[in-house]
């Protein structure tokens, strides 16, 4: 059985050029980074590409990482920027892959089609409501709700004051609350 290596040891080894150690770091943070980037850009394949791009950028700037800050918030900051860059490059497009997956679930003994359709519509509404937020507000909300970062970590990740984090979160939640009022009442 392989011995467990801490994040800090992996970061030090990666800073020394050890690509295997960095591979392990990517493995550990992959899911969280993809989740954050997906909420930022709303498309899974774009999110995965942007998340991989974020890890490449993180490798290039690993020398500048200071271990006194959580690696998670540092890599999330890079991921959010990669997501915004991806959004600037990509045009919005229909997510046929997800639709096909939902249909496939319905045809292979998954939940009944009506449930799938309702869940699908709700997911679409949530995704569109989040995407409708202006990027600075969306970034703060995504890092809080999907990344689980504290206000201080969000402030460090987005390089904004703590008070700005609070006001952006309030605005984002207020706008989302209005947009999703119908969904919340239906639950």
């Amino acid at each position: 059985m392989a011995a467990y290596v801490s994040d800090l040891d992996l970061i030090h080894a990666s800073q020394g050029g050890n690509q295997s150690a960095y591979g392990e770091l990517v493995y550990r943070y992959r899911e969280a980074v993809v989740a954050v980037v997906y909420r930022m850009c709303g498309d899974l394949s774009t999110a995965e590409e942007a998340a991989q791009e974020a890890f490449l950028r993180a490798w290039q700037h690993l020398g500048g990482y200071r271990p006194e800050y959580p690696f998670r918030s540092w890599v999330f900051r890079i991921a959010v920027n990669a997501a915004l860059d991806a959004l600037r490059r990509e045009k919005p497009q229909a997510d046929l892959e997800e639709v096909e997956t939902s249909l496939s679930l319905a045809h292979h003994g998954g939940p009944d089609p009506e449930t799938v359709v309702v869940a699908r519509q709700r997911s679409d509404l949530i995704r569109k409501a989040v995407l409708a937020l202006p990027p600075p507000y969306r970034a703060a909300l995504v890092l809080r709700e999907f990344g689980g970062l504290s206000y201080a970590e969000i402030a460090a990740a987005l390089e904004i004051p703590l008070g700005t984090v609070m006001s952006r979160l309030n605005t984002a939640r207020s706008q989302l609350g209005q947009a999703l009022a119908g969904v919340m009442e239906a639950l």
Partner: protein
Amino acid sequence: MNEANRTDLAREWLGAYLDGELQAERRSWVESHLAGCADCRAELEQMRGLSALLQAEPLPVGGLSPDAFVAGVMEHLPQVEEPLWKRAFSFCLRYAPLFLFVAWAFTQAIGWVAAALVGLASLVPGAQNLLGAVWTLPIGIGFLPGWLPLPALPKIPGLDQVAPLAVFQLLTTAVVAILFLAWLAGVWSHRRAKGLMTADWK
């Protein structure tokens, strides 16, 4: 501060209160306000419901497997140029078995050719002096009988001259075998050390 102002202030802090980000004094103030303000309680519940709704929303299925994702990142990392001595060492280490086999085959061939020449020389009178120089000098085994404890040999023509060759062949085979085993051990320990770092994600 009138009630409307207190409610406005509380609403500014409700999100931070929900996230557990308020300091003790401010948190107490918000809690005391919530106890007497139905609107703020309703708004807090709405925020809590919104947060639960967002966090319960799963990622779409499909996409890259973890290994494929990591591999996609790793293959785009810039390759680090190793110093010349390290590359030379890696080359030697990689082809060590081939070098050892060639060395072993070379010494074996010399031994067998020399033994054949010695055998021939013992059968042809007068040829021994001529051929002796051919096999003893290049491979340098003429000194072996002087310091190796060799068993007494039966009186067969040419055997006393072939025996050092057999010892030489055995010695070179043993040395090659030891070097090969050392190479195997080195490769195994290197891979094991590397595996400690990579086994978790491969």
